[in-house]
């Protein structure tokens, strides 16, 4: 396809604007003090980036801004919901990161002044930076589904940020009678963890099959296709026959509204009343990204795929779930990979160099049962201003393999979690 390499008018204009921006704000190469990088958000993206910056250039002054003293990881939190893992196994602190020379500030960032290059904190103090990294994750859109606000989430949990919500969904499942109906409402793309709702369906079904075998699970979906679809659908048939039902967008599955008083989910073509309702609403970049002027009208952050610098806010980089990364899914693995690329690019920019064009990898493991793992992997590189799939690289688990193969992938999933959390927090 010869046409695919052409620079579109939008790309050309965008590239020209970026050049002008770079000239208008020359780097402070003459600065006397050590260059300062502030990272907002202590999840997989931000914590990885702060560490990587310090490792690449120990002279950098790196500050990690994160109000929570403990991070609760989303990957594997579906196993907590299924009652097979403690929430403590998901929790990590920042002591080791601080011991590595990163200044950890346990405050919420409330303001960003891109012109003055300062970050305002909840306690009224502020931090100056040469480069700012935003890794704020997602905000749930409590304006997207009629009736689904923060109060409704206490009745119909989203459990899409790990912690109290994870435990609430687990408690509701434990309290449910055998024979009850569990409904998961899955959002349209893009959203955090594309295979997540379907892994959750599997692991909740595993709990139901074990403890409440007369129960049913229904997925109401705002999409017609989803990540690892064939593998998940095969697993539902193989492991949980007759228990899991998926209603796609074209079958009327899109939830438009909810009624928390009756635990009812409302689509264009019918109402579904659940004993346990898990409503995963549409999402957008965490709020500080909008405060910083880094979000566009999608609610997410457009970035340069080489440096992860915001297309609208100079000297501000956005990584992880909050950024629009083209073909790269919103995952912990992605956030970690982007963090390292972004850290290297920032170190290069600060020293006056030109960042190299990166290649990034993502892998997502999902558990269809505790001993049944499936995975998808992809390789990505910048193309036409976005991160695009490298064709022929990556792939998904094969369809027809013996159970030992699935058990091995479940072991790989455990190893992956241990490895990434050790690298980021250990």
């Amino acid at each position, binding site marked *: 396809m010869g046409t695919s390499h052409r620079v579109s008018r939008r790309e050309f204009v965008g590239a020209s604007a970026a050049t002008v921006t770079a000239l208008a704000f020359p780097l402070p190469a003459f600065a006397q003090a050590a260059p300062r990088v502030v990272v907002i958000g202590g999840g997989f993206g931000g914590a990885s980036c702060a560490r990587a910056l310090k490792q690449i250039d120990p002279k950098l002054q790196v500050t990690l801004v994160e109000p929570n003293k403990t991070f609760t990881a989303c990957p594997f939190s579906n196993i907590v919901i299924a009652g097979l893992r403690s929430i403590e196994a998901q929790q990590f602190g920042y002591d080791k990161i601080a011991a590595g020379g990163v200044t950890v500030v346990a405050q919420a960032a409330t303001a960003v002044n891109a012109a003055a290059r300062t970050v305002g904190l909840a306690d009224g103090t502020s931090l100056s930076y040469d480069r700012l990294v935003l890794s704020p994750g997602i905000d749930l859109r409590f304006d997207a589904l009629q009736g689904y606000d923060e109060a409704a989430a206490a009745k119909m949990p989203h459990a899409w940020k790990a912690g109290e919500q994870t435990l609430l969904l687990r408690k509701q499942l434990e309290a449910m009678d055998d024979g009850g109906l569990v409904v998961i409402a899955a959002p349209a793309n893009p959203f955090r963890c594309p295979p997540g709702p379907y892994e959750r369906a599997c692991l909740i079904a595993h709990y139901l099959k074990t403890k409440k075998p007369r129960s049913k699970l229904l997925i109401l979906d705002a999409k*017609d296709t989803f990540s690892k679809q064939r593998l998940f659908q095969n697993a539902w048939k193989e492991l949980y026959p007759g228990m899991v039902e998926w209603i796609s*967008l*074209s*079958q*009327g599955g899109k939830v438009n509204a909810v009624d928390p008083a009756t635990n009812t989910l409302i689509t*264009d*073509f*019918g109402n579904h009343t659940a004993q346990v309702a898990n409503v995963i609403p549409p999402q957008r970049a965490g709020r500080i990204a909008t405060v910083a002027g880094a979000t566009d009208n999608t609610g997410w952050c457009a970035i340069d795929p080489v440096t992860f610098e915001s297309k609208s806010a100079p000297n501000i980089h956005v990584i992880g779930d909050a950024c629009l990364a083209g073909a790269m899914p919103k995952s912990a693995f992605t956030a970690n990979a982007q963090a390292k690329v972004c850290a290297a690019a920032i170190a290069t920019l600060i020293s006056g160099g030109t960042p190299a064009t990166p290649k990034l990898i993502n892998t997502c493991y999902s558990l269809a049962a505790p001993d049944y793992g499936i995975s998808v992997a992809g390789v990505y590189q910048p193309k036409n201003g976005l991160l695009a799939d490298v064709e022929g690289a990556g792939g998904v688990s094969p369809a027809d393999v013996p159970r030992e193969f699935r058990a091995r992938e479940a072991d790989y999933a455990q190893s992956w979690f241990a490895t990434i959390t050790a690298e980021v927090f250990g």
Partner: protein
Amino acid sequence: MASALINVPAKAKRGDIIEIKTLMSHIMETGYRHTTAGEVVPRDIITSFTCRFNGSEIFRTDLFPAISANPFITFFTTATESGKFEFEWTGDQGFSETASASITVE
């Protein structure tokens, strides 16, 4: 296999404005795509949608290749009397589907 989804209120008061929702599963193949061998994928779209109430046409629309798969069509009408809505989708390659729903107007 095509399938229709219909949402018509079961009951309404005389004079109420009611919303009718329909969704027809259909590939809506534009006719502008080619296979890897270079052959044109033949156009296969719904070309017409009609709604009749108690035998009289109350809504009709033509559909074109730019309309996405699984067309979702909603419209409003006034509830005048009890009766039956009949829906009909017709299109390329002999496509023809019908569905119906009743309303009680008080």
